[in-house]
């Protein structure tokens, strides 16, 4: 089977029940999605599958055959920051960075479906993402700064 990761088709050797997180990190060397709780509760493994945020730690790769997977590396090119990345940078919304890829990808998906989210919408969208460093406020500020603007 194959999946498309950040625009590049990848033939997958791992078995169909292998978590997408393991496929990305171990088989394909894509290290931005993190192995945090590995049971769906922390959000650090979050990637976009066909544009929708998914917990890679509990997505069986065989269930997403042919799908497009987007990780943080796939948001923009090497010489530029995606507006979501820029907003996180400008608002000091990342410290250790462990939660950041998941937070930012969930934000991309949020702005896709709700271009002008309220603070409550943002909290609801990021509800499944744990951050141990920032206290969340700067993350919410960063996302709020993008409401109604560049995506």
């Amino acid at each position, binding site marked *: 089977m194959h999946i498309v990761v950040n625009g590049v088709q990848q033939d997958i050797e791992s078995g169909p029940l292998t978590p997408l997180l393991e496929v990305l990190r171990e088989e394909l060397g894509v290290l931005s999605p993190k192995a945090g709780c590995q049971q*769906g509760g922390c959000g650090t493994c979050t990637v976009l599958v066909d544009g929708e945020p998914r917990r890679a730690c509990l*997505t069986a790769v065989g269930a997403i055959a042919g799908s497009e997977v987007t990780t943080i590396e796939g948001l923009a090119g090497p010489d530029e920051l995606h507006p979501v990345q820029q907003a996180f940078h400008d608002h000091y919304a990342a410290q250790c960075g462990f939660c950041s890829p998941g937070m930012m990808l969930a934000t991309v998906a949020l702005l896709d479906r709700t271009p002008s989210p309220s603070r409550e919408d943002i909290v609801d969208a990021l509800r499944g993402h744990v951050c141990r460093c920032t206290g969340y406020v700067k993350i919410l500020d960063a996302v709020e700064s993008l409401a109604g603007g560049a995506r």
Partner: protein
Amino acid sequence: MPPTFEVLQPTSPDEAVAAFGDGDGVTVVAGGTIVLPDLTYGRLRPRRAIMIGDAGLDGGGRENGALRYGATTTVAALADAPEPLSRAAGHVADREIRAVGTIGGNLCAGHTDSAPRGDLQAPLIALGATVRSAGAGGEHNEPVEDFLAGAGGRLVLSIDIPDTPRRSGYARLDRPHAHSYTILAVSIVAPPDGFEGVRVAVSGTGPHAVRCPAVERALLAGEADAAERVLDDVDPSDDALASAWYRKRVLPTLVSRAIDDLH
């Protein structure tokens, strides 16, 4: 690490039923929100796994005066389901989990060492839902509470909810942080007037949700302290979220709130 067990991916309900057989040694994977972490943590060592996500079990519609939900209907898709099922579904974990978790998987989810799961069981019991399942002895059709009390080893095919006029009430207790499990929840479904045939069910007090006949009888009899009768119907245990003592103290209040919520 290569799998040491067989993984099947049926592409139709008939194929899924055939692959399941009598269920012996079979692990069913629907959304994967429970099975995949169990595999990762070594809690589950399957002999044969069946991924039913593409087996055409996600259909739904009307069937003989009932609303039918295929086993792999996602929790997110239950947003339009009858109350209190839709309310309970909206409180499951977070949107990413709800997007892939299924009604069938939730129905079959048991209590872990640390927290109750299967939040949809109680609303389904209260709604008088029935389960169509495959396995040893062929296809069965039974009330949800009987399915839950059974020996297991069944492949859920669909869940039917009778489409009758009703009032519903719901009250829950949870922890105020992300990805919180619901500690206790009460679901009540009553006729538009009075309490003839009222159904009350509770989640979070045991291995699976249970019906509360003592509360139901008390409501029908018009007893003022009907909510207190719930302690005759349940025998909660301690877990990581709350002690049995705490659950027994809080449960009558939750039942009372669910009764007040009837609408």
